């Protein structure tokens, strides 16, 4: 399918989703839906570095929180409309990805992964000690009740939902474009055999830096509207456990080979978690995600998408 068509279809699906939810007229769906969309972006972003290049990022929370705290910083220093904050967060988180990548990507993948784990802890320490953005006390972000967009008035949460929907389209289109491009081929060789990739002329360091920057930027963008969504931002919620585990579990359970896997994983797990949080508890639902991650990683290494494609391939024979 040509790229232009794909973009059109994505936008159409997004528009239908939004309008459909407005018709149903249930605010809860927008609130819960926002979280699911957020996870689609995080999972897709993670997969660009993790699934395509084979480099595991454990610190998704760090990039997400950087985006969130960039918003808080500007909210206090110089209020800006959220789309502008999206761009700024992308820049900040992208640079963080680039910097960390530069320091660690010349070494083995394991060192990069460990560094990302430690990064989340350190960034949280820095934020907790930085009073301007609220420190451990947290920061309040007061926002309007309704927003007017192109002449239509809508509740603020629907506006946020729309923004996140845009980010989802952006993330998915980016992922798919990469997959089919020369860049995507390069990423695949890094994942398959970095040494052979270098010997074939692939500038592995440069490509890995592109992947970390892109991945970090997208995660930061996902975090930018978060303070406005939640109203009161604390380090423990921005750096929460659920971001780290979900950004890994969703692509790995859905399938890391293409843009479809993170989408499937995020929709499935995201919806299950929303239901579980309401019916059981949020700690139990995280436990379920953790267990599912371990189980899937052991028995279904190619995720749900891989499982399904293998099934159909077997039937063909």
């Amino acid at each position: 399918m040509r790229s232009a068509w794909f973009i059109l279809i994505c936008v159409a699906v997004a528009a239908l989703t939004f309008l459909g939810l407005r018709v149903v007229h249930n605010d809860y769906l927008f609130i819960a839906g926002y979280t699911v969309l957020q996870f689609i972006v995080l999972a897709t972003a993670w997969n660009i570095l993790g699934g395509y290049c084979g480099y595991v990022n454990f610190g998704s929370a760090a990039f997400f929180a950087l985006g969130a705290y960039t918003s808080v910083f500007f909210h206090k220093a110089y209020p800006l409309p959220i789309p502008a904050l999206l761009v700024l967060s992308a820049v900040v988180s992208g640079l963080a990805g680039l910097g960390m990548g530069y320091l660690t990507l010349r070494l083995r993948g394991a060192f990069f992964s460990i560094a990302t784990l430690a990064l989340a802890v350190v960034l949280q320490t820095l934020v907790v000690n930085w009073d301007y953005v609220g420190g451990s006390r947290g920061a309040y972000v007061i926002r309007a009740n309704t927003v007017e967009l192109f002449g239509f008035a809508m509740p603020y949460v629907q506006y946020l939902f729309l923004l996140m929907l845009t980010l989802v389209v952006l993330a998915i289109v980016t992922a798919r474009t990469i997959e089919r491009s020369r860049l995507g081929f390069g990423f695949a060789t890094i994942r398959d055999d970095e040494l052979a990739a270098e010997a074939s002329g692939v500038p592995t360091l440069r490509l890995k830096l592109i992947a970390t920057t892109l991945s970090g930027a997208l995660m930061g963008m996902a975090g930018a509207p978060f303070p406005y969504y939640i109203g009161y931002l604390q380090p423990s919620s921005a750096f929460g456990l659920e971001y780290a585990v979900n950004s890994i579990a969703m692509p790995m359970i859905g399938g890391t080979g293409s843009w479809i896997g993170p989408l499937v994983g995020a929709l499935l797990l995201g919806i299950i978690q929303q239901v579980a949080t309401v019916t059981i508890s949020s700690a139990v639902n995280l436990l379920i995600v953790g267990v599912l991650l371990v189980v899937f990683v052991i028995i279904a290494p190619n995720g749900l998408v891989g499982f399904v494609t293998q099934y159909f391939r077997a039937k063909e024979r």
Partner: protein
Amino acid sequence: MAEPLLQIDNVGKRFGGFVALDGINLTVAPGERVGLIGPNGSGKSTLVNCICGTLRNETGTVRFDGRQIDGMPAHKRTILGLARSFQLPRPFHSLSVSENLHIPLLYAVKSRSGSHLTPAELEAHCVEYLRLVGLDHKARKRPRDLTQVEMRKLELARAMAAEPKLLIADESMAGLSHSEIEDILKLLRQLSERGITIILIEHIMSAVMSFSQRLAVLVSGKKIADGKPDDVVRNPEVEKAYLG
């Protein structure tokens, strides 16, 4: 005499306390066919790795096409025109056989010439290389569907697809039948006729003797002989150390 294409001066490499390469000197002229032989563990693959940038040599210099390339990352050296096949095949498993060849074309060749190939041209180039090694009927398959021998051929084809000035074939013939060895030799001779310089690293003496214009012998990290194949083979040190 023309400027050598590859010049290795006093190259040394250690792993901890183990000296893998000890002051290696080697010169390769453009268009030459050089054979490199030696017992297992003598440092042949280490030397290839140092030339190609997979490993960094600790002492000495490597000059390629007039430029000093020590410290240059491997991919830059490939872009400059240095290509190698790996002794143990390292294909890209998630790509098809023909896509494996896309990579050097998309990266090494494109970076060098800046040309833009349409997907059709790209595929045509790949099929041509696959045909040269007899793998064109398996273009759509995955590397895991290939036999060991076919994977070696893919290794060689991938190195060729980088359109190198200097091709280092690291034991590509191990396990091949007599006729398959002849096919590879014919292929290498064709490449040589096109002007590509070739360094052949092999244990199969008949192949090395018939192919090489010059023969170098590596034993325990040192070069003990370097000259015409017939002379080298009769060298008593070489006989003792390797041919025995």
